[in-house]
């Protein structure tokens, strides 16, 4: 499938449409504004949080979807609401804490009060004082509540969308990705182990690309390559959904050994020995032989299963040249204390100081620095050819090509 290329006025798209992407996609403020409108506030499901973060009615958590602040609140025993954190009256972001509990949502400015599901309940002095002032008689509480998002809670994860056109979450994933998703999010109750938060000065799409690009994993990440966690010569696969927007990198752990393929990995550290290898105490816990399943759900989140470390990594765009990255490390509620400790130890590989992940934050920033001043130059995405299809190896950029083809389609470019 090829789609016609229609770059915005004054911009060009390289002739090698699927295998070359111009750098203005990382830096153009008009493109970014259009992304917010068409992607983040368009027909896509966005990650909000975990159901277990708000166990009791009245518990809430604040989050940011696209650039818009929202509140995820347990509005009834079996109901989670996601409403915009913006008072209908004057636009106040009324919930300021990360987490809280309240009977209703109240704006501090003029004390407009909302039910937990976002319905406007009270407007002080609505009828005036001594027949003076007050709201007009036709002011309708039911028409002036908080903006309510569509919500689906799927095996412990809360998703929301601003659009009425977004298909049901399972259809949004497609059957292949429903299977990948439910391999880890299998309906067992989840529990939070902790958070990490970092601002990465790079365009938000770079983060999606990074986890759709297995080519870099064994090259940039010497730690991965050295300890055999993720390497080009291991049995692996890349799967993409029919639209090209979601991806998964699948791999299985190998040994710390020098193989033929290692000749291309310049800084492989074959003699590297850990003094205390408990950080690499890995157990096989999911069906099959795969030890890695890194899922990118377009556009907002990465669902990480890397050996026994499980995280959601939420992307919050902050202008064209940066995004906030919120890591939620989690475990299953029925995990043993040993398993919780194992997951906590393995977290040393991930997050802002991770042996592996810190490399990514750094290289994304360096990419933004190199690409921004040359918006009309372009990247080369030819590894593995020019096609967009699932592969049974990782020497490919197929999933990155797939994302940009979908991106052009939704952006009308």
């Amino acid at each position: 499938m090829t789609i016609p290329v229609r770059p915005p006025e004054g911009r060009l798209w390289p002739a090698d449409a699927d295998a070359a992407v111009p750098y203005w996609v990382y830096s153009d403020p008009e493109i970014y504004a259009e992304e917010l409108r068409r992607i983040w506030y368009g027909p896509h499901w966005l990650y909000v949080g975990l159901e277990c973060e708000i166990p009791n009615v009245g518990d809430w958590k604040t989050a940011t979807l696209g650039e818009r602040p929202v509140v995820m609140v347990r509005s009834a025993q079996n109901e989670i609401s996601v409403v915009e954190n913006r008072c209908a009256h004057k636009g106040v972001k009324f919930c300021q804490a990360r987490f809280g509990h309240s009977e209703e949502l109240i704006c501090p400015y003029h004390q407009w009060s909302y039910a937990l599901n976002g319905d406007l309940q009270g407007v002080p002095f609505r009828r005036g004082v001594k027949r003076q002032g007050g709201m007009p008689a036709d002011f309708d509480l039911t028409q002036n509540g908080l903006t309510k998002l569509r919500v689906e809670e799927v095996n412990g994860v809360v998703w929301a969308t601003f659009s009425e056109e977004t298909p049901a979450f399972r259809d949004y994933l497609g059957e292949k990705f429903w299977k990948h998703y439910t391999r880890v999010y299998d309906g067992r109750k989840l529990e939070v182990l902790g958070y990490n938060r970092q601002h990465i000065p790079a365009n938000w799409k770079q983060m999606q690309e990074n986890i759709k690009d297995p080519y870099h994993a064994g090259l940039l990440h010497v730690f991965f390559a050295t300890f055999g966690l993720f390497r080009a010569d291991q049995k692996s696969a890349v799967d993409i959904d029919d639209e090209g927007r979601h991806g998964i990198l699948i791999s299985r752990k190998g040994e710390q050994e020098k193989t033929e393929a290692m000749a291309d990995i310049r800084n492989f550290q074959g003699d590297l020995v850990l003094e205390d290898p408990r950080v690499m105490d890995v157990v096989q816990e999911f069906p099959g032989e795969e030890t890695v399943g890194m899922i990118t759900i377009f556009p907002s989140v990465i669902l990480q299963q890397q050996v026994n470390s499980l995280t959601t990594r939420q992307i919050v765009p902050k202008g064209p040249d940066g995004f906030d990255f919120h890591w939620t490390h989690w475990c299953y509620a029925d995990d043993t204390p040993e398993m919780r400790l194992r997951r906590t130890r393995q977290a040393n590989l991930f997050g802002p100081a991770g042996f592996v992940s810190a490399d990514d934050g750094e290289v994304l920033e360096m990419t933004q620095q190199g690409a921004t001043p040359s918006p009309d130059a372009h990247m080369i995405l030819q590894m593995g050819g020019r096609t967009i299809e699932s592969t049974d190896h990782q020497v490919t950029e197929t999933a990155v090509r797939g994302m940009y083809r979908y991106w052009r389609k939704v952006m009308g470019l």
Partner: protein
Amino acid sequence: MSTTLTERPAAITRDAIRDLYDDYYATLDEVRLHDWPGFFPQDCLYRVIPRENFEAGYTLSTMQAESRGMLKDRVTGLTRTQMYAPRYYRRFPTAPRIVGEENGGVRTRHNLLLVQTLIDKPSEIVLSAVCHDLIVADEGRLRFAERVVVFDSEMLPNSLVYPV
């Protein structure tokens, strides 16, 4: 008269504590990373942890080690496997406050600012933290049996590269 650690290992005096911190922060500021694990006994606990995790009772940390071996592995990972842009880190601790004694060790707290300078960039704060330390006498010197750096900072400016 100054107190040296080798002469009075058992006495954890204020001067000795002060010397320990001066030595510790100089070692890190000068990026003598291979000397860093020596500030901890074989069995130790080292955490750099977001305040929200600490207050919620979570142990999940941005950096964690449970032994001197793991601290050495952190140095190995940093020096032999990680990729990062060149930078200077400088640490600005306040004077330690002694908050208690425990099995012959001394618990202290102090505030810490970690400032980084990247090429072509103004200096910026990486984190603002309070350090919960347990100082013990070990093998004739003072060491940190526990060092838990609880940082307020909500959003780290990209990576935390070197230890604090």
